[in-house]
């Protein structure tokens, strides 16, 4: 009886200070055997930090951790693993060039005669993947796998280590609705086997669906608990942010004009040389938002790259404002066609981390008047431009000379958005414009996108967030395996229908 009530995991008074930031302050958290605890909080609320402390990656500045009622000292993840704690990290911790089996066994290898016993590991993986219905091929190489499969590998990785306490840090951010359902089934299965799960997400609906209990963090502190039976999305959002949040986007009906972007029969390959686009055709008109939905890895990235000149098209045509822009240079497309591009991967494409904010704000306009005359760069013009944008777009930065890379993720995104939105535009291409940023900033960016549309800009929006697509788009295109499997007017779109399309199921009733 008594052991039943002892939490499997408890944190007492955890405080974590980083230089200049208190990431966690006096956080108390309990996790019981066989429950799913959801952890909610804005960006930077300290969720990942707390989990990293529980997992032994960070040392708390103050406070203690108890596992099964005993205080424990964890100096590194191996201590946590030994205590039966497993973690699926927000950013996948997989070695891209290695196989699934190698990644899973890493750190707890099976060895026979001094050599790795890959066959035994593979057998064990197959067994686990059958038991939990997590389909993975032990010999596949990680970088060949779509994100959904990588997610499954991460989960198997923790199960492989016999974890009893599972920490899942934003596991659903990149999954399709169907995959999310699958994940929830697995979580329930694990729970029923007596495992305990901490589940972090920004999607309030999921929390209400799967959690047994909810804990909310705000600015590093626990601000309350909620019962999924009684809580609503709005009440949770208010608890998280500390104010009422409008979760829906207000917008007028669209008033589409002439075609701005026309894509015809486009074909291209991915980095590995495999076909990624197989004959994609669609168009975007001035004054409308076309959303492209789909599970990551179905060609959306390549589509954007081809349209913006970053990737070579093998076949097909791209026209912008009637001008042929197939395989034109990025500069021709941004400048001649007056288009802008909020890239999906801001760290890779959108910014140069060591550059100061001011230089990042002219990353693709440095060669234009007034920022330069001939080859002479006009530092003063660049600085005043930066000062203005930082204010207008509320980019929180100590100064415009601060390296862009040291801003928080959300502010980096705002910096990129500010640069792209501040030009005269015909065409706006926004890929995952709100990825990983908090509700307040999302609100701001969404309103900006709608305002652009209302000013007659053609908007191509790519997002893996179905909610975002549904909230903003006037028409929705769904990509599956390099093709547009269907284009649906917003009014006729349903979550279920889109989810099926994203999974490749073409329903006859859905108009194409």
């Amino acid at each position, binding site marked *: 009886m008594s052991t039943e009530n002892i939490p499997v995991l408890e944190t007492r008074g955890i405080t*974590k*200070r*980083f*230089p200049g930031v208190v990431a966690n302050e006096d956080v108390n958290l309990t996790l019981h055997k066989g429950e799913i605890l959801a952890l909610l909080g804005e960006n930077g609320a300290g969720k990942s930090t707390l989990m990293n402390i529980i*997992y032994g*990656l*960070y*040392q708390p*500045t103050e406070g203690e951790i108890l596992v099964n009622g005993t205080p424990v000292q964890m100096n*590194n*993840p*191996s*201590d946590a*693993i030994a205590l039966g704690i497993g*973690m699926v*990290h927000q950013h996948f*911790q*997989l*070695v*891209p*060039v*290695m196989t699934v089996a*190698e*990644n899973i*066994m*890493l*750190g*707890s*290898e099976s*060895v026979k005669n*001094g*050599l*790795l016993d890959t066959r035994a590991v593979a057998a064990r993986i197959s067994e686990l993947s059958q038991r939990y219905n997590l389909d993975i091929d032990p010999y596949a*190489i990680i970088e060949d796998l779509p994100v959904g499969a990588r997610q499954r590998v991460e989960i198997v*990785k923790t199960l492989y280590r016999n974890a009893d306490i599972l920490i899942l840090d934003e596991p659903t951010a990149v999954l399709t609705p169907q995959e999310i359902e699958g994940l929830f089934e697995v979580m329930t299965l694990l729970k029923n086997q007596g495992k305990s799960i901490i589940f972090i997400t920004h999607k309030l609906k999921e929390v209400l669906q799967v959690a047994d209990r909810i804990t909310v963090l705000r600015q590093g502190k626990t601000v309350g608990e909620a019962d999924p039976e009684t809580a609503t999305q709005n009440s949770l959002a208010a608890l998280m942010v500390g104010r009422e949040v409008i979760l829906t986007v207000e917008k007028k009906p669209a008033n589409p004009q002439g075609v701005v972007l026309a894509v015809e029969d486009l074909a291209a390959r991915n980095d*590995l*040389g495999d076909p990624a686009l197989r004959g994609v055709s669609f168009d975007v008109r001035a004054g409308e938002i076309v959303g492209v939905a789909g599970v990551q890895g179905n060609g959306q990235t390549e589509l954007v790259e081809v349209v913006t000149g970053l990737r070579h098209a093998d076949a097909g045509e791209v026209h912008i404002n009637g001008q042929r822009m197939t395989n034109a240079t990025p500069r021709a497309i941004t400048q001649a066609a007056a288009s802008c591009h909020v890239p999906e991967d801001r760290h890779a494409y959108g910014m140069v981390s060591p550059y100061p904010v001011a230089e990042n704000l002219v990353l693709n306009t440095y060669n234009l008047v007034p920022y330069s005359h001939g080859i002479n760069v006009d530092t003063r013009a660049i600085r005043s431009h930066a000062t203005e944008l930082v204010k207008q777009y509320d980019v929180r930065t100590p100064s415009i000379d601060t390296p862009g890379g040291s801003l928080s993720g959300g502010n980096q995104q705002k910096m990129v958005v500010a640069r792209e939105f501040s030009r005269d535009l015909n065409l706006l291409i926004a890929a995952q414009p709100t990825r990983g940023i908090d509700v307040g900033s999302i609100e701001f960016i969404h309103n900006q996108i709608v305002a652009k549309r209302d000013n007659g800009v053609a908007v191509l929006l790519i997002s893996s967030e179905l909610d975002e697509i549904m909230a903003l788009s006037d028409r929705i295109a769904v990509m599956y395996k390099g093709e547009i499997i269907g284009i649906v007017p917003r009014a006729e779109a349903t979550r279920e229908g889109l989810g099926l399309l994203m999974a490749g199921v073409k329903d006859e009733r859905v108009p194409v």
Partner: protein
Amino acid sequence: MRPNNFWKTSSLISLILAGVLVVMALLVNMTPLGNSMWLRVFFGISALNFTLRASIPLILGALSGILCERSGIINIGIEGMMLAGAFGGFVAKVATNGWPLTASLIFSVLIALAIGGLMGLLHATLSIRFRMDQIISGTVIIILATGFTAYLFDRNAVAEGKFNALPIPGLAQIPVIGPVFFDNPPITYLTLLLVVIIHVALFHTRWGLRTRAVGEHPRAADTVGINVNRYRYVNTTMGGMLAGLAGAFLVLEAVGQFQEGMTAGRGFISLAAMIFGNWNPFGALGASLLFGYTQALQNELLLAGFTDIPRQFVSMLPYVVTIIAVSGFVGRVRPPAAEGKVYETEGSSE
């Protein structure tokens, strides 16, 4: 094309080429084909012997680089580590001239390994503990070793004796193949063995798996409880030891003496061989052998009195062939992803 398939294809090609070379060598050295000057130049025993011997320090140097870089530490200091190892081996040999030859030589090899290892440890400490840019650290190692060995070198010291060939009974009697492969001094055998050992270790053991993980994605390794920096220290130190062994080869097996700057750029060629071989032991072996072979060829041509074109152009052969090979059919190689980056476990807190 996936890099993996690519490397399978290219290993196949090199295997076939090696096979052709051996068959031709057998024919040329055992049949009247050997009367043709050109065939002798290309396939004579002397060319093959030269190839192997010129390749040994390059192979060891490249293996040294592989161990370091696979764990994420760039090592451009191979040249310096080699030189320091050579010097250490030399000093030890001079100090133990009075011992029985074999004991003295083995002791000197151990000292060369130790000195090389210390250089590796220095490189690791500078780049991990003191967060020095790894290119700079490698450069420091090179200049330090060059300056220090020249400063300390007593040019009147004489090392007496060096490793002699140990023919392997039976195998050494095979025509052509015997004298080339089975009649060599010990470090040569050891080097060829090390290629296999390091290949197996890197791709089929726990240590290798962890080393590669640490070099590709240290954070992932850290999250499964691997001590990233410990692996880097150990690997870089072992890498230093291999470079030290290359130095030992030069002093104790190839020449029998030390000389300032005697590595004469071999560390840099090793670096090129490592990259050329895409950070794989067998790739490095192939690259080193290719380089050694072209060096042998140019020497053979000059020895054969080939003067149709200026001798400087003949001497360019190894370098030009390497350039053509890397650009023509090797192309883009892929370094370990985390190479050169400091890894900090605890985001600079406290």
